């Protein structure tokens, strides 16, 4: 069974708001090109940054400097391979409708499971959405049952049937 691959970069705790068209206003044209053209196809060659520099019409030193800066400012988390989630074990996206006054308590209970990798509060009647990943189906059912037991609420389980998107990064300035 396929393992959930969920957005991780996109839902981060709030950071300092930046004026203008989001934080991208603070990026130079070269930094934007770096980000747009090299989310994919980072060279597998002895001197990859020099190759990037050649494409961008700048120096290797400059590319390294810009990447370090982008990383320091939090615009990129890293430069490197993005791995496909391991396709071993079982997983599901689960949702539960929790009364507001119980939300923090139940969220804490759910988060305490090592098997829960993501948990979001969403603006919906079904307000808690979390991903459970386990070594096997049996353990998955067990975690679901334990959560239902604790909360006294029905947990809706929506395991992945098929994924349609091939993640090649996405255009930031289209």
């Amino acid at each position, binding site marked *: 069974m396929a393992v959930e691959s969920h957005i991780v970069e996109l839902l981060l705790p709030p950071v300092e708001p930046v004026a203008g068209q989001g934080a991208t206003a603070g990026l130079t044209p070269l930094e934007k090109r770096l980000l747009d053209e090299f989310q994919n196809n980072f060279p597998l060659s002895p001197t990859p940054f020099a190759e990037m520099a050649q494409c961008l019409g700048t120096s290797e030193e400059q590319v390294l400097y810009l990447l370090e800066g982008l990383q320091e400012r939090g615009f990129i988390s890293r430069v490197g391979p*993005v791995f*496909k989630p391991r396709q071993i074990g079982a997983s599901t*996206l689960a949702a539960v409708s929790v009364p507001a006054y119980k939300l923090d308590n139940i969220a804490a209970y759910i988060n305490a499971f090592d098997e829960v*990798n993501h948990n979001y*509060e969403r603006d919906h009647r079904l307000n808690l959405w979390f991903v459970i990943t386990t070594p096997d189906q049996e353990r998955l059912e067990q975690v679901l049952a334990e959560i239902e037991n604790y909360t006294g609420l029905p947990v809706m389980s929506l395991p992945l049937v098929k994924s349609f998107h091939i993640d090649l990064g996405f255009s930031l300035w289209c």
Partner: protein
Amino acid sequence: MVDKILDDLNRRIVLATQAGLPLVPEPYQQLARELDITADEVMQRMQRMLESGIIRRIGAVPNHYTLGFRGNGMSVWDVPDEQVKRCGRLIGDLDFVSHAYHRPRHLPRWRYNLFAMVHGRDRAEVEQKVDTIAVLLGEHNRAHETLFSKRILKKTGLRFKGER
């Protein structure tokens, strides 16, 4: 789907690179020294993992939130079951959609069978993009909703574990 078993060397390469490549002129050479193999071997192994799909891509991993993509919504769609594959492919090809999934319905509580994560700078932009999807799906779209995230309560990156 076929399980992709990582051999020991691949696993060590995964562990050494999952937090990012070193930002030095010869990053593969540096990795090779750490792993006690040659740089060629590192690059070949990574190339093969890329071809077999263990590695999806190699590059800069943007933090969309910091970059200003503050609006993101999980759009959910009720399309006829026999159309779900076609609709899923249409949605999955859109550049503002990062993930598109077919999931089971859960009637009567949950009628939706197609999920698409939509990204934009703010909620209004996401709503606009959701409208674009609605137009694209046309009559196959029997109902849809967008669930915006209010709070992230837990986020653990999917990581390959070192011990196993």
